[in-house]
């Protein structure tokens, strides 16, 4: 916890710290509120927020810090989810198997995609990551045994041999939150380490990085794999959360949603993906109550943030420098 608090850096209270603190306190206390009011839906919604924040966090690692604009990030959610779903269907219910497989399969996929796509840049990189994600999407549709287009219901959540009971919604929520906070801490350590400086340097000026002696490709590839693995874990959580997997969870618009969350919250901000995911999903939820087309509002909002607000919501909060 002491280290986690260092993510704030420096001392004193500024708007960013205040908002981050309120968000974290809110997330920590929400189950109490939900229990008092009996609002089960809020619990479900915020569990989703926390899981997708973990996915957006992993995207932010490569996109915000590494400048690798991956437009196929939802594929990892799908791979992580299908790892859980397929293993569950085949009778392997242990989370000690399912989750490592989800993480490992995502990492292997990231290694393959990264090894090819990271040789290109700009629009080509975006297109290749998208193409791979589409491929995986159609592979999932073709998996007749696992529901094909209709998806697959997961009848039993991952079993952890009595250590944690994921059917306990409060417990599951806190597990997701703990994993998200661990993820934020990990990313924070990572981007400030030697490795992180290479990644950030390559985003800023890759040509110069090579000139001073960095073989940038291998570092970017490792970063890409770390992000993929992290998002695979989010996929495993998501499958457990919804008790259901389907190709829709890796549709390209899902990848777009993750990008929106990262940009909205503020790239290169430690809590940006969380704030972005929360803003996006809560707004989407509220808007879908009043209109059938929440994207009519969300789209222009994103445009506004992208054009006028440097650094997303985090940028609006100003305050001390990030690093």
């Amino acid at each position, binding site marked *: 916890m002491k280290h986690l608090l260092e993510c704030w850096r420096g001392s004193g209270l500024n708007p960013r710290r205040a908002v981050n603190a309120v968000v974290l306190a809110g997330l920590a206390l929400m189950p109490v509120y939900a229990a008092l009011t009996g609002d089960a839906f809020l619990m479900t919604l915020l569990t989703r927020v926390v899981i997708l924040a973990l996915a957006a966090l992993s995207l932010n690692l490569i996109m915000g810090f590494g400048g690798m604009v991956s437009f196929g990030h939802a594929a990892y959610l799908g791979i992580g989810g299908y790892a859980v779903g397929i293993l569950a269907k085949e009778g392997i219910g242990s989370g000690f198997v399912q989750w490592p497989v989800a993480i490992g399969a995502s990492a292997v996929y990231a290694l393959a995609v990264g090894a090819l796509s990271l040789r290109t840049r700009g629009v080509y990189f975006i297109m290749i990551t998208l193409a791979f994600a589409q491929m995986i999407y159609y592979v999932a549709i073709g998996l007749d045994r696992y529901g094909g287009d209709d998806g697959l219901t997961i009848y039993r959540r991952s079993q952890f041999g009595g250590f944690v009971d994921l059917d306990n919604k409060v417990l599951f929520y806190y597990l997701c939150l703990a994993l998200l906070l661990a993820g934020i801490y990990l990313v924070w*350590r990572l981007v400030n380490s*030697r490795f992180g*400086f290479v990644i950030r*340097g390559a985003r800023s*000026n890759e040509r110069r990085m*090579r*000139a001073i*002696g960095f073989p*940038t490709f291998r570092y970017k590839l490792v970063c890409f794999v770390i992000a993929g693995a992290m998002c695979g874990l989010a996929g495993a959580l998501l499958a457990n959360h919804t008790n259901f997997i389907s190709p829709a969870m890796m549709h390209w618009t899902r990848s777009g949603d993750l990008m929106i969350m990262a940009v909205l919250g503020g790239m290169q901000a430690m809590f940006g993906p969380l704030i972005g995911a929360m803003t996006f999903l809560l707004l989407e939820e509220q808007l879908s109550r009043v209109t059938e087309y929440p994207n009519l509002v969300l789209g222009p909002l994103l445009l506004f943030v992208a054009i006028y607000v440097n650094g997303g919501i985090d940028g609006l909060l100003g305050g001390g420098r990030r690093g």
Partner: protein
Amino acid sequence: MVDPLLAIEALTKRFGGVVASDAISLALMPGELHAVIGPNGAGKSTMIGQLTGEIGSDHGRIRFGGRDITKLPVYRRSWLGLARSFQITSLFSDFTALDNVALAVQAHSGHSFRFWRAARGEAALREPARTALDRVGLADRADTRVAALSHGECRQLEIAMALATRPRLLLLDEPMAGMGPEDSARLVATLRALKGSLTILLIEHDMDAVFALADRVSVLVFGRIIASGDPAEIRADAAVRQAYLGDGEGWEHG
């Protein structure tokens, strides 16, 4: 006789029908400051690109420290001790001056698959970086972000980054570009202080600087070295005068 540190033999590069480097041969002895001058479009940038590895060569060889580096990628040449500064300032703008130089130090202190410890807290990176900043007179600007540095300071920082890789050969691509007289004089003083301890290949338009610093000068015109010699010989060379120095515009501004 001492072997040259850098020996370029018949280096050639064609872009379509244009011969950007036409059988360039050049040798740099250890410790010398060799200047290459030439009008715009003479092929100076292509030559630098070939030396650093950003541009492949069609023919010819580059030997560095007795080793053939013609086919090595950019970062490997850097590991061997070949450093460059960029004509157009090329820095990490969201980092501080010290971060920039520390990154150059880091590139030469083993692999960077170190994921946990804060790089800004590593004395092994920060101390040599401070020394390099000090050498170019930027010690008091260490914690300033690059975006807030003046043009002249950025040019100095360019050199500090190259120095931080502890190079044997420094390729300076028009380090005085866009500098006022005061900054230029400061940089000339910096380079003079480096002279002798390093081998330097200086590409430069500022003739005062070239003639003040260079041990030898080569003149590049249309991708070809038309003359090589000490500064006095180059001033006196008839072909050089005709091709380059006689052209008042090229002389002053390139």
